[in-house]
């Protein structure tokens, strides 16, 4: 499947899943194609960060589910220290398999867990990626909660992540 068709499919799926009326937070992130001899899909953690860098809400954790590979979760260094180490994995609706190179869209309903419980305030979405025999990178996208107006934040990864875009839809 080509990049563009995968994106299209993802968009189609997300459009089908989410209602048009509900406020949501959507994240579009790119796992870049890397010209390396030994490639493994990255482990990725995505969370809502408080101003003191603690975790306000975990949004997604992708790791190798084939076999027991949870021993490498501390390599998601920031996520691990900020609260990943307190989490029991696998966790329903949170942990999942690693994803391939390409664009990935994640949509979170503002009225559903885990965002529904988020008190008003300033936050950031953190996306951290680490790859076996590769590098580690984290990007941050600041936002204010609750969503009052349509807003878009973008960040550009340099190594392990490509473009990351956050869309806030009231």
């Amino acid at each position: 499947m080509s990049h563009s068709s995968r994106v299209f499919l993802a968009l189609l799926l997300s459009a089908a899943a989410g209602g048009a009326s509900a406020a949501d937070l959507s994240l579009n992130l790119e796992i870049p194609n890397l010209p390396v001899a030994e490639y493994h899909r990255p482990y990725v953690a995505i969370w809502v960060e408080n101003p003191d860098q603690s975790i306000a809400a975990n949004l997604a954790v992708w790791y190798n589910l084939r076999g027991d590979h949870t021993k490498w979760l501390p390599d998601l260094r920031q996520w691990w220290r900020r609260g990943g180490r307190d989490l029991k994995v696998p966790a329903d609706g949170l942990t999942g398999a690693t994803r391939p190179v390409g664009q990935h869209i994640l949509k979170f309903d503002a009225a559903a867990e885990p965002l529904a419980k988020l008190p008003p305030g300033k936050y950031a979405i953190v996306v951290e990626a680490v790859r076996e025999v590769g590098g580690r990178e984290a990007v941050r996208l600041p936002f204010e909660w609750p969503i009052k107006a349509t807003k878009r934040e973008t960040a550009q990864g340099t190594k392990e992540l490509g473009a990351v875009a956050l869309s806030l839809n009231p």
Partner: protein
Amino acid sequence: MKLSIAIAAAMLAFAPAAFAARAWVLPSQTIVARAGGWVTFDAASSDDLFSFNQGAYPLDGLAVTTPDGQPVTPQNVSKGRTRSSFDLEIRAPGTYRVAVAGDLVMARWEEEGKPKRWRGLPADMAANIPAKAEKLEVEQNQRRVETFVTVGAPTALKPTGVGLELVTDTHPNDLYAGETAKFQFLLDGKPAGDLEVEIVAGGTRYRDSPDAYLVKTDSKGAFAVTWPAAGFYWLDAAVTDENATVPNVKKRRALYNATLEVLPQ
């Protein structure tokens, strides 16, 4: 000439810390995701940190405690020429304290004009030092060389109350480059104020300067260190006083060394 050699030998015997290479215990990893694996440790004395190129550190006083403070016996304990090593099976979440600790008495005396020496446990002192020992000099030697390993989330460490030890207000497995860690030194469970602490980053072979960071504890035994970079660090402190905790001994030397891992941001 002969006399000066004898004096030098005596001095060496009585001031091991001043001349000895740096003692350390180095873990294969300090952060472990979950229980059910192994961590391996090397223990050695060397001037280069952390290269096992001088002497193995003896593991007679190997003392490992589980997160709930229970002693646990490591496996595959071996002593080689340049390093000792052992494996620890990680069975519980929390922080393991991995130490080599010793509390010995060193004695030197003369018997009918001949110099005699003995080194052993305080309890065995009476049986090994004759009552007629002349020019008797005894010294208590307390030593703790340790490191820490955390499985999952860190748990608090309880001070032992024995000798010189580090109280980690900032958890020893929660150290990051650019951040400031706060620690405290205790001597016999009480704040060790005005104590000189030396902190040296590993990889000494790969730089021209020793780059030792020296800091003094305040009146409460507290001190802070801001980690310049990620890596393993060696922490060193020593006290020489007249407050031996062994009956009939005055002089005491208490030494402390820790190996700490600082992670990148």
